[in-house]
């Protein structure tokens, strides 16, 4: 896998505040990477460093093989798309005029701009002034400009803020299609639950350092958070934890009569196997730890360690 982005011991300080602290990361071609962390964790600064909008206090940044601050790095931006957090456009121009402007800077012809407007569902509003656009429409125009010139690398900073659930779905649909075409996407988000099934790699940032990174599965293993089972048994059998789970999973009876079992990830399959043998089993519900829970767990670990 080709490495598109490489950060080596990168530090960024603003005065006395350290936004990114001795961070080393690599993103490969075709990956979809989520930068996760609360406000001020360093997500936006990290994206700005990769775009050459700000320079590192120490360390080395390479994007598409170039230093983003160099002239070659500037040329490399032809193949990079960026959607900033709270994207803004001049209110007096129309959506198409705005996209044509950015299209010219990326040497893209008019049909490409019109296609992209159609792709984000703004064809009807193409000739309306951006001042009349809703937040969701501006966000979609922002996504359209980020997709100009078929980028190899896409930075999306809090891309779904302000979008309604329907638009979020269509947004992730577009991101999934890009992933299928081999585009590397780096997105930062607060909306952890949205990201779970959609990303290859998760980087949890905290105070400018990567607390942990890996696939969702590897994070789950590392966090050692329990998997929860809820078993529903037919009347008469409820109210008591079956003995077959003894020593395998901790069990309890919930207020609604369901049996709740909690076990480590490596015992999951065995629990399911035994549950299948239970007489009168009506339903089985499995809850793997969510990204929100993982994030909270890693943060708690970090805080108790310090």
């Amino acid at each position, binding site marked *: 896998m080709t490495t598109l982005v490489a950060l080596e011991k990168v530090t960024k300080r603003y005065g006395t505040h350290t936004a990114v602290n001795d961070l080393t990361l690599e993103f490969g071609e075709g990956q979809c990477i989520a930068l996760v962390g609360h406000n001020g964790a360093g997500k936006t600064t990290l994206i700005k460093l990769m775009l050459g909008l700000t320079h590192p206090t120490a360390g080395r940044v390479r994007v598409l093989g170039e230093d983003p601050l160099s002239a070659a790095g500037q040329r490399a931006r*032809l193949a990079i798309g960026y959607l900033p957090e709270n994207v803004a*456009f001049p209110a007096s121009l129309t959506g198409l*005029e705005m996209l044509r402007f950015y299209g010219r800077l990326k040497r893209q012809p008019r049909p490409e701009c019109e296609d992209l407007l159609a792709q984000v569902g703004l064809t009807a509003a193409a000739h309306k002034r951006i001042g009349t656009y809703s937040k969701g429409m501006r966000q979609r125009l922002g996504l359209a400009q980020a997709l100009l010139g078929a980028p190899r690398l896409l930075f999306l900073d809090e891309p779904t803020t302000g979008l309604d659930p329907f638009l979020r779905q269509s947004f992730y649909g577009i991101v999934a299609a890009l992933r299928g075409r081999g585009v590397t996407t780096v997105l930062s988000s607060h909306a952890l639950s949205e990201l779970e099934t959609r990303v290859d790699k998760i980087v949890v940032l905290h105070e400018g350092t990567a607390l942990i990174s890996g696939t969702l599965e590897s994070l789950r293993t590392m966090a050692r958070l329990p998997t929860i089972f809820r078993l529903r048994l037919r009347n008469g059998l409820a109210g008591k934890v079956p003995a077959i789970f003894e020593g395998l999973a901790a069990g309890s009876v919930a207020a609604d009569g369901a049996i709740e079992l909690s076990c480590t990830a490596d015992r999951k399959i065995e629990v399911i196997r035994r549950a299948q043998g239970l007489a009168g089993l009506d339903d089985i519900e499995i809850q793997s730890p969510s990204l929100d829970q993982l994030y909270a767990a890693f943060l708690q670990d970090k805080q108790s360690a310090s």
Partner: protein
Amino acid sequence: MSNLWIIAGKEIRDGLRNRWIVATTLLLAALALTLTFLGSAPTGTVGASRLAVTVVSLSSLTIFLVPLIALLLAYDAIVGEFDRGTLLLLLSYPVARWEVVIGKFLGHLAILAFATAVGYGAAAVALVLTDGTSEGLTTFAAMIGTSILLGAVFVSIGYLISAIVRDRGLAGGLAIGVWLLFVLIYDMALLGLLVVDKGRTISAAMLDVLLLLNPADAFRVLNLSGSGGASQFAGMAGLSDNAGLSPAILLTALALWIALPLGGAALALGRRQL
């Protein structure tokens, strides 16, 4: 198309859309026509070309109004885009920061040049049509050209302010301060200095330098004491006889007044952390 023209083009479109171009053109045309027909009435039949006389009154108008328009156009150009968040996105594109500064400058200059040429041009056309003579038209054209040059100086100074400060309000305040300094305070201070000094320490050469240090004065000397004959009506004949400032020197000074602040603005944006 190069990035410079792409950015300049967007700035012009923006100017058309938010009525800047229409408003400034109409303002300059209205004032120029008023001054032309009211201001040149006293010449009667003394033989002075009305176009040449109008150059004098329009030059004074230029000194007050064009720097103000230029500064108002320019002070928000960078700090405003930074504030609204549009600059961040633009700089993520394959453009150099200096291209953003120069491109925007060219766009704003085009707006100002159009407004000045059309606004003042309307007065010239009206005069030529009513008088039936085009005598003095070259002086008039030179006045329009140098007015645009003076506008460019103040757009450039506005850009420097806009690239350095981080607050739009402060940028606006500084722009007004610059206007007050160069258009009003500087000349009064210079005059006071000359009166107090009575020619003891300030030599003619020193006075020349002091005039070049204010672009508005360089413009004034260029137009009112130039070779077009306007000096006789401007009360500047004495000055033009004594001043050792050739048009070449004055034009060079104005060119430097454009290049240096603009270079400073490009440098300041280049170093800015986003």
